[in-house]
């Protein structure tokens, strides 16, 4: 049972972003949408998460689905500690102690042990984004949306975080929809890479990479990179 979007129409500021657009998102894979800036990638995520409205189109199998969102910015509450920030999104019906325990588990998984009781102002940008990733995974979602969460970070941190992300993903193989304009990010994370054109969007080509371990120096990955370069404008 995959997620499907059919006949999507959406304009924003008089620009037609999507014109009768269709896409399918397979379950338990990381689908990576690779496209130029301003093509409507973020808008697509916002329509899926219900923070923006489509002009037309059907979202199939999204009903009643629980969604986590990793934003471009960490979006942590400055007045809550790392642990509390994660517990904040968990259902209040779960007793607080239990929620904090779940939070601690995911803090360990993103290797932030020892920082549970830190306020975000005391963390670096990369650490904050790790908390945001832990928050998204701790939330019992059917779908994780990611909007270029690594944009503001330097390359080393980026690689580090992507490794952490893939490791976390291996534990429960959640359905992930990840948008970026950076080929390297797509190559390091995606199981399926969907290349978007400029607005109005059409899908230029799709690639499927099943490799578990990713490295930008791997000849196979380099080959993919060259192919994707050709497809992108």
């Amino acid at each position: 049972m995959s997620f499907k979007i059919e006949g999507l129409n959406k304009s924003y500021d008089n620009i037609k972003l999507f014109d009768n657009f269709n896409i399918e998102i397979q379950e338990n894979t990381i689908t990576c949408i690779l496209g130029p800036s301003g093509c409507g990638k973020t808008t697509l995520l916002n329509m899926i998460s219900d923070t923006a409205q489509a002009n037309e189109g059907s979202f199939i199998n999204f009903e009643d689905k629980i969604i986590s969102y990793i934003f471009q910015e960490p979006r942590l509450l400055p007045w809550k500690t790392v642990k509390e920030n994660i517990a904040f999104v968990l259902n209040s019906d779960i007793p607080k102690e239990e929620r904090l325990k779940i939070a601690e588990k995911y803090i360990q998984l993103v290797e932030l042990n020892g920082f549970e009781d830190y306020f975000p102002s005391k963390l670096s940008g990369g650490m904050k984004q790790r908390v945001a990733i832990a928050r998204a995974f701790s939330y019992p979602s059917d779908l994780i949306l990611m909007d270029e969460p690594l944009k503001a970070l330097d390359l080393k941190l980026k690689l580090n975080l992507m490794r952490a992300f893939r490791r976390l993903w291996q534990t429960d193989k959640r359905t992930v929809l990840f948008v970026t304009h950076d080929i390297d990010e797509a190559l390091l994370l995606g199981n399926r890479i969907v290349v978007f054109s400029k607005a109005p969007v059409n899908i230029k080509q799709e690639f499927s990479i099943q490799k578990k371990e990713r490295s930008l120096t791997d000849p196979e990955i380099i080959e993919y990179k060259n192919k994707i370069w050709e497809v992108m404008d």
Partner: protein
Amino acid sequence: MKRLLSKTKIISAISVLLLLCLWKVASLIYNSDLILPSPESTILTTLKLLFSKNFLLVVGATMLRGILGFVISFILGILLGILAGTNRSFEAFLNPILVTIRSTPVISLILLALIWFKVDFVAIFIAFLTMFPFICTNVIDGIKNADRDLIEMAKVYKVNHTKIIKEVYLPAITPFIFSGASSAMGFGWRAIIIGEVLSQPQFGIGTLMQSAQTYLLVKEVIAWTIIAILISSVFELIIRKIEKAVIIWK
């Protein structure tokens, strides 16, 4: 940083000293206790007042009025401020009321209050009307300045409305509440004393200032003024201390 701090402190001390010197010189020129007593004799009078037998009762009564007015303003200001900040229609309803209260001269409010209320209640009423708009306006501003991104995040994660108010909006407006409280207190104490001067409750700083003025006891008028300033700064200090203790995440 520490050296810089001590430097500004020295400059502030010089400013205070200069003010005292000017006062002293002026008192020497007039050379009359009926017009301007010297600083040292005034300070002596202040000390005498501090140990006079009704002092605690007088100061306590004034402070009680201020605190009562403040607590009512604080609670109502936060509640109505949150409502207005999260609901446009309510803001449109509340705004003219706030503007009217803020632009009405304090003295008109006092004159009317003197007609409407019992003596002891006048100053509390005035305190409320001067303090409430500050707190309420600050809370509304705080909510408007709350980070939309954080609220969107909370909504995407389906956090319920009450929890968003309690755990996102309320902490976000906390610094605004404190700055509102601090300006409210600053204006509030002045208004309370005017209220007391005119309403003449049995105990109150304003009551005694008024009688001192009637008997041309300039020394006492200034001494009570100094005491009023001290009370105001003590409360300002308390607010700042509480703010530091509450906002631990910065």
